[in-house]
């Protein structure tokens, strides 16, 4: 059943229900008509019987047997032992009931249906009743043909047998049409849905006007399309930004090489151009690497090798990695003790994220850089603080967005992705990244991870 198309299924169910209702109705009408007709015939037989009984009672019967006959009915008057006393000519001189029946009828009246009664074609209804006359108790027998009734019933039967299927067929066709109409909004939505592609993400399904299941389905699907559109939009913006960001270093790279090819005359000039070009390639590689991390994390596919990581050891490694470079700029990197705190993390990724923060503090911040861990609320927060100018207030909210740069002149070699990657790595660890300005001076950027 579930494999039949819904339109056909609805129609079939409708047809089945209609068939039951029509059949019941037909049967009821037929039965009712039947009993009505029978009752009429019986009633007229009784009246006839009464008439004859009164003839018998008045004693007129002996003189006028013709009074027995009346229109389509025929009658006999028998003695209680079953012999003819009087009869309409049509019924002839044979008694129409047996002596036993006559004996019974002399006691109380009854009506039976007979298949054959003389001079009556087809079935007949037969009434037998007692009647008292001057000659004592007699039995009146009256008969009436059931032909008309049977014909009428047969006609009605024929009409019903033809009419009901025709009505059923018409109703089913109407049902098919109506269910088709009811389902048309679904088909309209389906056709539209088939046309919607990523090329027109703003397209929505047409909704029927009635507030029904189909409209609610359409609204739900449209909300889904809305979410998909937003996702596509984000994706598009990212690709747009990414290609834009790739173009500037590429343009420089290309110009560098073209100029060298055009104008460099000495090996030294050529060498200088090539070294400079390599710097550009490094920058491009870094950008490509960063973009890959972001793209993977956006898909939730940033592979993490989660282990228990001691925060103290992690901060120690960072100190080792950066202290020489920081010292070379005349600044210092301080690591505060982390008191045996541990987190569950991918050590390399976490180190990359914290490394980006230290790099930022080194590049854009000032003064002493502090690495500090704290715990609270089931989380471990690892802070990177400096004593520079801090973030511009309008930048803080956008700090973790892709390609946003605090320094509007886009100075430095940054890709504008460092903090976005920190955020992506923190989120992949089911943590979060935050930025704020310290009350005294400088920036405080931290990653909060679930404690382990």
């Amino acid at each position, binding site marked *: 059943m579930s494999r039949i198309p819904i339109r056909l299924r609805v129609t079939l169910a409708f047809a089945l229900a209609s068939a039951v209702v029509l059949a019941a109705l037909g049967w009821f009408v037929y039965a009712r008509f039947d009993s009505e007709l029978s009752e009429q015939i019986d009633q007229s037989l009784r009246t006839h019987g009464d008439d004859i009984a009164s003839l018998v009672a008045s004693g007129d019967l002996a003189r006028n047997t013709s009074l027995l006959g009346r229109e389509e009915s025929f009658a006999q008057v028998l003695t209680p032992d079953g012999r003819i006393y009087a009869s309409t000519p049509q019924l002839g001189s044979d008694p129409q009931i047996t002596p036993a029946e006559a004996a019974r009828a002399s006691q109380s009246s009854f009506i039976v249906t007979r298949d054959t009664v003389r001079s009556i074609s087809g079935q007949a209804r037969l009434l037998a009743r007692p009647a008292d006359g001057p000659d004592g108790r007699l039995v009146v027998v009256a008969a009436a043909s059931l032909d008309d009734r049977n014909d009428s019933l047969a006609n009605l039967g024929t009409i019903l047998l033809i009419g009901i299927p025709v009505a059923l067929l018409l109703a089913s066709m109407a049902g098919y049409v109506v269910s088709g109409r009811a389902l048309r909004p679904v088909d309209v939505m389906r056709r539209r849905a088939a046309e919607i592609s990523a090329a027109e993400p703003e397209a929505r399904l047409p909704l029927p006007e009635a507030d029904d299941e189909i409209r609610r389905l359409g609204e739900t699907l449209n909300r889904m399309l809305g979410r998909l559109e937003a996702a596509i939009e984000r994706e598009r913006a990212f690709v747009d930004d990414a290609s*834009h*960001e790739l*173009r*500037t270093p*590429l*343009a*420089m*790279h*290309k*110009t*560098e090489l*073209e*100029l060298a090819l*055009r*104008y460099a005359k000495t090996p030294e000039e050529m060498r200088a151009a090539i070294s400079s070009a390599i710097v550009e390639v490094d920058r491009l590689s870094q950008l490509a690497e960063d973009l890959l991390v972001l793209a993977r994390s956006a898909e939730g596919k940033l592979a993490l090798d989660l282990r228990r990581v001691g925060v103290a050891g992690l901060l120690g490694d960072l100190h080792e990695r950066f202290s020489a470079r920081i010292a070379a700029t005349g600044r210092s990197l301080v690591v505060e003790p982390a008191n045996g705190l541990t987190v569950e993390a991918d050590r390399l990724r976490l180190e990359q994220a914290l490394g980006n923060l230290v790099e930022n503090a080194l590049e854009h911040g000032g003064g002493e850089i502090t690495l500090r861990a704290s715990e609270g609320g089931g989380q471990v927060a690892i802070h990177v603080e400096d004593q520079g100018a801090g973030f511009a207030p309008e930048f803080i909210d956008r700090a973790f967005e892709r390609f946003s740069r605090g320094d*509007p*002149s*886009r*100075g430095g070699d940054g890709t504008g992705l460092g903090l976005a990657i920190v955020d992506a790595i923190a989120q992949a660890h089911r943590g979060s990244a935050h930025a704020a300005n310290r009350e005294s001076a400088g920036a405080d950027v931290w990653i909060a991870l679930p404690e382990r």
Partner: protein
Amino acid sequence: MRVLIVEDEAKMAGLIRKGLRQEGMAADIAPKGEEALWMAGSTEYDAIVLDLMLPGIDGFEVCRRLRDDGVYSPILMLTARDGVPDRVAGLDAGADDYLVKPFSYAELLARLRALARRTNGERSPELRVGDLRLDPARHQVWRGDREIELSAKEFAVLEVFMRRPGEVLSRFQLLEHAWDYEYENRSNIVDSYVRLLRRKIDRPFGTKSIQTVRGAGYRLREDGGRA
């Protein structure tokens, strides 16, 4: 020919200037829109290379304000955005041409030459004054059939003359179009280059194409000096 480079990325700007100077052009750098506005207002640049993405007022706005200020130096927009709306907005803001990063340096040069040609109402890529011919693209100069070897700066000065034949050009005008701000000692550099030029384009041919106009400057005769 003197070009203003409006580009915030210092390395990029430096590279473009380096290349333009190699071609004998004079080039200045404005790292911000604000600076570009006063620089272009105070010096008559033959072309402006304008990056769209600038801190502060952006390239579109710089373009619009320059035109509002009556600065009609041809503007070549340089941008990493290649969408049609961006290009339309750039051209409608008053830019004369549009180049998308990463561009080919050769194309940048060619477009700058085309812009210079258009401003001066020239049609032929070769400049001709009398029997003097100068090809800005190939950096070649001929007198009749004979090619003349010129240094980059001599070439630049001759190009300034040949773009305005018959006009009296002041030392300041020559300076403005052939040198950029980085030349500090300007006292008699124009005179010495004119001398060098005469030695190469006139003396071997017995012509007198560059005339001294007392108290005013110099003039390149429209017949190229061959009377």
